[in-house]
């Protein structure tokens, strides 16, 4: 015993007492004598002991209060910002910030943060858990305490620690049993083993597994039934077959002799010269119409005709290059002639009637005129 006590790895001296009264007495005495690093152990909380141990009032109540307020503030911010700022929607005639309707969410978030947060603070910050390596674990002492013993430990690091004196103090107060408690040598030499091959293999395994699952879910699983319900729906898509109609086409042409809403009848079908002679551009070259024309030209015409209509297609020879729009021929055409080409197409250039409204076609022509003028600018234009 004597030799052991001098060992450097002594954690403390402990004693088991048989009932709550005795443990209260010895605790009182130990506190009185001015020990600081001691602890009392029992398998249930003993009333009055905190007072005897001169423990400070537990701060958890205040912590819960602060966390609760934070939960409420977070909830208020979340509901206010999402419903009134980021994506305001009027629902049920309520104002954007309808506080009464947010109260339930605020309340739940308050309770959630306060209770879970306080528990986490207690376990992981105040108690510094998990701590399965504490020297008290797996000792005879702990086993007695967890059944019916009441134990007290005075740690060796206490300033007033005196091995002999403490042992005699304990037996004087009627200790049932006295144990010396040591740090186990492994514990003292314990080093975290982050770079062990086993651990690294485990990490690699985790990475591969996560990658595989991510790939599988995003690229395979969501294309299997029933997850693909958005991909396959009870309807026909463009270009598909349909048994509903005699000709087997799902897409239907307009009924003969009708003009769809918003469209008008083009009276110069196949008559470019008539169109050139009769059609007049209804738009004036204003900033707005030119902007519209530019936008539509860049979208629909520039892939083939080039950004400036010079016939420099961006299609890498996948489609024959069109002629330039700056030839004398085109520059001398009337607007109606160009309108006719956009509407009907010309040779291999397709019709744009279905993509562009009449107004948009005229706006494009205004823009082409502007291009023609700017590429053939004369000196007086600058003056």
């Amino acid at each position, binding site marked *: 015993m004597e030799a052991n006590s001098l060992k450097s790895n002594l954690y403390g001296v402990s004693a088991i007492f048989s009932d709550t009264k005795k443990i209260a007495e010895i605790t009182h005495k130990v506190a009185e004598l001015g020990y600081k690093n001691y602890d009392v152990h029992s398998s249930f909380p003993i009333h009055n002991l905190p007072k005897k141990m001169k423990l400070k009032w537990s701060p958890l109540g205040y912590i819960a209060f602060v966390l609760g307020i934070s939960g409420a503030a977070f909830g208020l911010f979340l509901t206010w910002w999402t*419903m009134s700022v980021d994506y305001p929607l009027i629902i049920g005639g309520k104002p954007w910030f309808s506080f009464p309707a947010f109260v339930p969410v605020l309340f739940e978030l308050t309770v959630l943060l306060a209770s879970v947060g306080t528990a986490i603070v207690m376990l992981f910050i105040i108690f510094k858990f998990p701590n399965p390596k504490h020297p008290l674990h797996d000792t005879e002492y702990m086993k007695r305490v967890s059944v019916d013993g009441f134990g007290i430990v005075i740690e060796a690091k206490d300033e007033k620690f005196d091995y002999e004196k403490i042992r005699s103090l304990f037996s004087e107060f009627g200790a049932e049993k006295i144990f010396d408690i040591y740090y186990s040598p492994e514990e003292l030499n314990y080093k975290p083993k982050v770079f062990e091959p086993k651990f690294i293999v485990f990490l690699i395994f985790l990475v591969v597994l996560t990658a595989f699952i991510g790939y599988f879910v995003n690229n395979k699983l969501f294309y299997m039934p029933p997850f693909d319900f958005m991909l396959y729906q009870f309807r026909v898509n463009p270009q598909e077959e349909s048994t509903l109609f005699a000709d087997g086409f799902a897409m239907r042409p307009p009924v003969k002799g009708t003009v769809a809403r918003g469209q008008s009848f083009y009276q110069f079908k196949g008559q470019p010269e008539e169109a050139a002679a009769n059609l007049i551009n209804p738009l004036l070259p204003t900033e707005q119409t030119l902007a519209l024309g530019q936008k539509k030209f860049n979208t629909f015409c520039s892939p083939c005709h080039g950004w400036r209509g010079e016939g420099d297609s961006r299609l890498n020879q996948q489609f024959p290059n069109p002629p330039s729009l700056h030839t004398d021929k085109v520059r001398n055409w009337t607007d109606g002639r160009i309108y006719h080409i956009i509407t009907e197409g010309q040779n291999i250039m397709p019709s744009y009637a279905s993509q562009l409204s009449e107004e948009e076609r005229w706006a494009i022509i205004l823009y082409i005129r502007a291009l023609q003028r700017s590429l053939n600018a004369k000196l007086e234009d600058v003056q």
Partner: protein
Amino acid sequence: MSRDYDYTIEAPIIEQNPSHSHINDAIARPLETKPTWKYYLALGISTSMLLFGVVCWGYTFYYGIGMWGNNQPIGWAFDIVNFVFWIGIGHAGTLISAILFLLRQRWRTGIARFAEAMTIFAVITAGLFPLFHVGRPWLAGYLFPLPNQHHLWINFTSPLIWDVFAVSTYLTVSFVFWYIGLIPDFAMLRDRTTNKFKKTIYSILSFGWRHSNRHWHHYEMLYLVLAGFATPLVLSVHTIVSFDFAVSILPGWHTTIFPPYFVAGAVFSGFGMVQNVLIIIRKVFDLEHIITIDTLEKMNKVILATGMMVGYAYAIEFFIAWYSGNQFESFVFINRALGNYAWAYWVMVSCNVVFTQLFWFKKIRRSIIPMFIIGVLVNVGMWFERFVIVVTTLSKDFLPTNWASYIPTLYDTGILIGSFGLFFTLVILFIRTMPVVSISEVKGVVEIFKKQH
């Protein structure tokens, strides 16, 4: 928890004044002995029920909720009925563990742990139903305010979203409350077991708890804080569940009495369920001196009281239907009592209000078989209460051309059976894997009574 109060002498909560080591032994026994054939039989039955439910739900998952009997105008049926039913079952646990704790009712010690566990299992079971109900459970993430590529947020003014928050908070907080209570007991089991594998598990679960009084000091404060938060929480949860109905404008749903009425009903059915299960547990595991007949009698008194609150609510609903002079409101209630679902209504009234009156007799309150039967009836009645509220109301709304009846399909019924299977499987597994009674609390209570004598 043991605290020094100025108590008047009351009957010992734990009979026979057992020693501390006896308490440890009695509570740890189910975890250390090999289960009997009866245990496996019970587990077999409940897992078969669960399996049946899983298959029925599998069909629903694959083919969609068209497998159910729901249709216009009855868009909510078994899915929502079961959800409300199971959430209600959970409420007894929190009431026992938190509210009775704040009210210093020490008789709760023997049953608190168990009741809390049942809360968690019931809320898990309940929480599955909204997932089933949405039909595409893998998209349920959109119920939470997660930033997404659509830049859309959930509608915080909707009672259904309040529900998401209430139920998930309830589950989390109940779990934390329960787990905090379990930590000292896991530590006790860790110190007790000689099996290396079990020791590792208990060491992990107990976080290295070492019965320190410096820790108990904070622990008791935390317990108080958690009880303090769980109490308004439990009241809020069924209140918010009732908002799912009350905030709508359907006659029969749109009533201000719903929140208190739902909370009372929840406690009522929950106590019925806890009482039933405890009767079986105490018998099978010889815990009759820890879960005493006095405790059960007290629970029966709670059942009687809450049953009458529910009965009062039924009466008031009728009164208001007449007093409001609103013809739609009156129609709904007359239809409930005399219409196509009248049988469901009268099952509800007789089970919830009539039979529970037998608890006025002390003899019935204290004899096991009658109280067990009444407990079962309470739950039958409460399930039908939710059925009456949800289905009868929807089946006849404003437009007579819309009226229809609801007939559950095999899949509806299968999922209901499966939910019982899930709940009981969890309960049965729980009894064998964790201490069903809080060891530290029971010891504390025994200690107090030792001093009194």
